[in-house]
């Protein structure tokens, strides 16, 4: 039986949520060099189903990064606000969006083969982002 990587990250996120002083700052900084999570503070997590949508994207990003970032290397995961609704979408790097960007996850440097230590740091960064949302 396979264990879901996201659920494993969620367990760590719950521990960190209880006490954020345990965050490994060096590892988090290394993760921030790998992956960027943007959140527009004007949209609170209780707006529509924004929290659920963010969780879905973090799940996708964590599982994809663990697998070597097949999806993330191709583009950015975005939640946009358009015509009164939250719309999940992806965009190529630097492409324009048709709506207001609410939340996004993207690799800072989508190199063809991401070194393992960067993958581990990136997963940690996403886990911290998860801890801020749950």
């Amino acid at each position, binding site marked *: *039986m396979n*264990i879901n990587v996201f659920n494993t990250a969620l367990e*760590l996120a719950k521990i960190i949520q209880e006490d954020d002083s345990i965050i490994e700052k060096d590892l988090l900084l290394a993760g921030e060099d790998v992956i960027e999570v943007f959140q527009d503070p004007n949209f609170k997590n209780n707006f529509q189903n924004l929290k659920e949508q963010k969780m879905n994207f973090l799940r996708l990003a964590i599982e994809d990064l*663990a697998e070597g970032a097949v999806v993330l290397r191709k583009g950015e995961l975005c939640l946009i606000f358009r015509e009164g609704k939250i719309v999940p979408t992806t965009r190529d790097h630097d492409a324009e969006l048709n709506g207001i960007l609410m939340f996004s996850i993207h690799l800072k440097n989508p190199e063809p083969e991401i*070194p*393992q230590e960067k993958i*581990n740091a990136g997963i940690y960064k996403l*886990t911290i982002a998860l801890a801020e949302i749950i």
Partner: protein
Amino acid sequence: MLVFTSSRSHLLKSSSVLALLVTFSLAAKATPKIISDEVVQNLSCLAITKNSILHSIKVDEAFSVFRHVPTKNWAFNAGLYNLANCWSLSHAQRLFFYLGRKDLPETPESLSQAANMVRQAIPRNVAGQIQFSGKKEYQPLPWNMNFFNSLESGFTEDVDGLLLDRSFKKDTEAYQVYRFHQILQNIEYISAPRERPADKNAQSYLTLIANLQFNRVTEVLIRPALRAQHVVLAKKYIVRPTGETDFFVYDSNFPDRDNVFTYDPKIRQFTALEIVQPLGVKNPEKPVGVFIVDEGDRDQMLNSLVRFYQKQCED
């Protein structure tokens, strides 16, 4: 010696049972070539990447006990202290898992390459003296009983006019000494309490799951006590009906079988009774510290595999 003999016969048996299957597609140009061997199955030449190779690995064969380094861990004197070779052997085991191919030919060059990779250094003639320096680039190498016997029994290498006696034992010990000094430099491994906090364990667990799900065998330092540390190589896991996760490892103290350590998500602790017991520490059933080490090393092995299979695709 029984362990030794038993595992050797496993390796020998596996050599005869697991035939190398390199399948070359004879179809039209549009059909990509497909490669299979004792490590990968149905690897498409359309995209040879680290990911595609990892996905095509046949875990049960590639990381089987039949492909373990058949030599049991041994102690040796390293000046001020006695050391065993667990870290060095785990490193060697990972490179043989990924890079060993039973049908590659044994040559003087392949013996030297293997010795350099095990030692992680290359010998050079520096003003009439042999010095080891630099990191040897990984390459696929022969992996069968005859080759290991040659490596273990030793050979003489001409290093720019100087003769150097080499063997698996010498090069393994040299790398272990190097790694031991790195342990001493890493205060985290030697200064923290025996049990690691829940977040550190959850973090190690997350990395192990993320790695093993995609066939990335992982070097793990297990620390049952301040002065007792042991490195093993995690290969796969299963989840018990009661929720604990058992990690199956190559353990150089038991080369003829897989050993196990366990994560209990309810208490967020690792235990490793069967691994720790032979180390002679008190209360071997109690939680242990688990550290993931040498993550970058595997990337270099996989990069070498990418080149290896790309060449096969071109041929």
